[in-house]
């Protein structure tokens, strides 16, 4: 009874170009070109029902765009949807590694430090691309379904053998990457159908989109996995994938690859605030290299009801439902209220939820090649509800006047603290420590910081406070 679903997607360029495969979605080229060429996938899953939302940042011309996703059964028109890109962007921002800032209090009046603001790593935005075409032929290839959803024309194909499918796709003007015939054959033997989506240029232009919206497919299958094999066929170097899962019970993990957590909790220098995107990129790169690109990096695992600190508000229930969290009831989500006195009202208070949302988000970041990830990523939902986030802390030293014994001790301790931060940053990113020290000097963290003292006469100090 259990039908398997293998999802694999491949990006195909028109015949004039070399086809480039990937896991399906080439992500992101925005202004901040973090992780150029990554894909973003959201998988919502409970009781064998899966909704997969795929965002790709296709950078060619719209007419050259196509994806192929093997599915276990014929997917009818009503099982396919086109989603709003903002949904994935919001989820990306909510789960992104975050920078937290604290300001030291006056060393002469010891107090608890207060959190000032949180910053998320710039979310990876989408770009565009698209194309369209539709035809049918016989080469052992059957067109099971053919319909349009939004700006996409979709075909559901079944094939008897990979040669036929390969030939047919070639005849239709697609050049598949080398070696894809074997992978297609493997999926055909497992009774897969193929979901082929292209862009319908007419509706694409009519709708006035400048980018391709994420495609959503809903299906029922015991199989919980993500295809990466086709993505590794092109020789364009490692692929990047951001995989978000939304589940009811807890964290999702791969069963056939090791999971490692990205480094978190370190105190880092202040100047990182201005280049947090670069920091995140270098930090991720270093972590990946340390694991020889063989692990899946866990970046975030949290109950969808809250966050602490928040990089963006939690998604409202209605949006979660749109992303496939079908088990949530329809009532609107609770309002997010800012902490009293908090400067950024959109940030939710850091405390556990009064009302659970029953959705748990896991953000996994994978960099992979055929060598390090030879097999599709098989996933399982665990019962682990422990929260995890990538969080980095900046501590602003006290720069106002302070003249007391405690202040001189405080300032004596600062160089050591700054050095520690510099070393932590060098370890995390592989950046040169002398460059870091220089940047710190420029960025308000002088290693020779002295307490400010007020040399004015006491009566001036008194009247002109």
């Amino acid at each position: 009874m259990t039908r398997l679903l293998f999802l694999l997607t491949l990006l195909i360029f028109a015949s004039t170009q070399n086809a480039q495969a990937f896991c399906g979605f080439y992500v992101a080229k925005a202004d901040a070109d973090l992780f150029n060429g990554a894909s973003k996938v959201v998988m919502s899953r409970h009781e064998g029902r899966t909704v997969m939302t795929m965002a790709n940042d296709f950078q060619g011309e719209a007419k050259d765009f196509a994806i192929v996703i093997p599915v276990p059964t014929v997917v009818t028109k009503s099982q396919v949807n086109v989603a709003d890109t903002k949904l994935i962007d919001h989820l990306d921002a909510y789960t992104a590694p975050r920078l937290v800032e604290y300001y030291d209090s006056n060393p002469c009046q010891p107090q608890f430090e207060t959190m000032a603001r949180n910053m998320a790593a710039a979310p990876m935005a989408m770009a565009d691309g698209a194309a369209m075409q539709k035809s049918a032929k016989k080469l052992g290839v059957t067109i099971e379904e053919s319909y349009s959803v939004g700006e996409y024309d979709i075909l559901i194909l079944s094939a008897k053998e990979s040669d036929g499918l390969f030939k047919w796709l070639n005849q239709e003007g697609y050049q598949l990457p080398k070696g894809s015939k074997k992978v297609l054959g493997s999926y055909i033997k497992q009774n897969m159908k193929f979901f082929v989506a292209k862009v319908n240029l007419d509706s694409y232009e009519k709708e006035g989109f400048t980018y391709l919206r994420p495609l959503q497919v809903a299906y029922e299958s015991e199989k919980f996995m993500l295809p990466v094999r086709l993505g590794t066929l092109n020789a364009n170097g490692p692929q990047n994938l951001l995989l978000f899962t939304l589940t009811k019970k807890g964290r999702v993990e791969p069963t056939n690859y090791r999971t490692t957590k990205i480094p978190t909790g370190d105190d880092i220098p202040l100047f990182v605030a201005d280049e947090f995107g670069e920091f995140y990129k270098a930090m991720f790169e270093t972590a990946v290299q340390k694991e020889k690109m063989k692990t899946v990096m866990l970046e975030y695992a949290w109950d969808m009801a809250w966050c602490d600190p928040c990089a963006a508000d939690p998604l409202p229930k209605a949006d979660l439902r749109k992303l496939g969290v079908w088990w949530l009831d329809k009532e609107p989500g609770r309002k997010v209220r800012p902490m009293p006195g908090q400067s950024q009202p959109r940030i939710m208070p850091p405390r556990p939820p009064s009302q659970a949302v029953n959705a748990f988000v896991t953000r996994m970041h994978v960099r992979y090649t055929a060598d390090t990830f030879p097999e599709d990523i098989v996933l399982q939902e665990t019962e682990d509800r422990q929260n995890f986030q990538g969080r980095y802390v900046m501590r602003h030293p006290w720069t106002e006047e302070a003249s007391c014994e405690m202040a001189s001790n405080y300032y004596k301790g600062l160089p050591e603290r700054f050095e520690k931060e510099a070393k932590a940053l060098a370890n995390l990113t592989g950046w040169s420590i002398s460059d870091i020290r220089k940047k710190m000097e420029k960025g308000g963290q002088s290693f020779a910081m002295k307490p400010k003292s007020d040399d004015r006469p006491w009566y001036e100090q008194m009247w002109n406070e």
Partner: protein
Amino acid sequence: MSMKIVHIIAIFGADSRLMRLINAIKADPRHFQIIALSSLLTLLLLWSDFAPSWEVLVLTLSATLISQYMFTKIFDVPTFDFRSPLITGLSLCLLLKVSVLWLYPLAGIIAMASKFLIRWDDKHIFNPANAAIVIGLIALPEMVWISPGQWGSAVWMGFLLICLAIMVLGRTGRADISLFLLGAWFALLLGRALWLGDPLEIPIHNAQSGALLIFAFFMVSDPKTTPDHRLGRLIFAISIAVIAYIMQYHLQIREGLFYALFIVCCITPIIDYFIKDKRYQWRET
């Protein structure tokens, strides 16, 4: 300083104490298993971001040891043996994942209870750690899971060496079953890859699982719950591999191997009935 060296020599040197220690370890193959499992656990603690906490270790190990002691008293067993419950406890720490801490000691108690309560022909039927894991997975699916991916393939070679060393050093005489199982399992993975036209990297990647090695060398190999005759053990191992394969690749049950061992253990008495051989004793007397 020199006093100390003299002292150490006095303990381990020409004196036969070192030899006595070695002999004491060699006296029981389970000593090697304990050393190996502890090494694997240490490796996990150093290596994994999801390693068990010290509370887990303390609770699980004390639960298995105390319940072994209690059952020894209840069933009037002449001597309390710390080795088996230690092995069971270590295996649970290595494999079992639960969402609430108290389930660890509970699993330990269930494991030892299964050993004393579910018996046939003076032989317990289930491997205790496996029984606890399977009962947990079935009874409390909302709280129990295993993480087959937690080891990754990088430390796999180290794992394999440790396991093989134990097999050679331990000489339980029943270790053949581990090789039978690994052989059968790999043959199935290889067959699947050939049928699908997949590259060999895939079955090799799949075989490189730390969980698989722990399962093969420390659970399936339990001489008390496996058939007495070598042919019986071959049948036993192949059955586990086939059932686990069907569960994992056709039914999408990730814990297939553990369920398979549980199922096949039920037919061990039947295998023993038809293919008879000497009953295993931990210490050859």
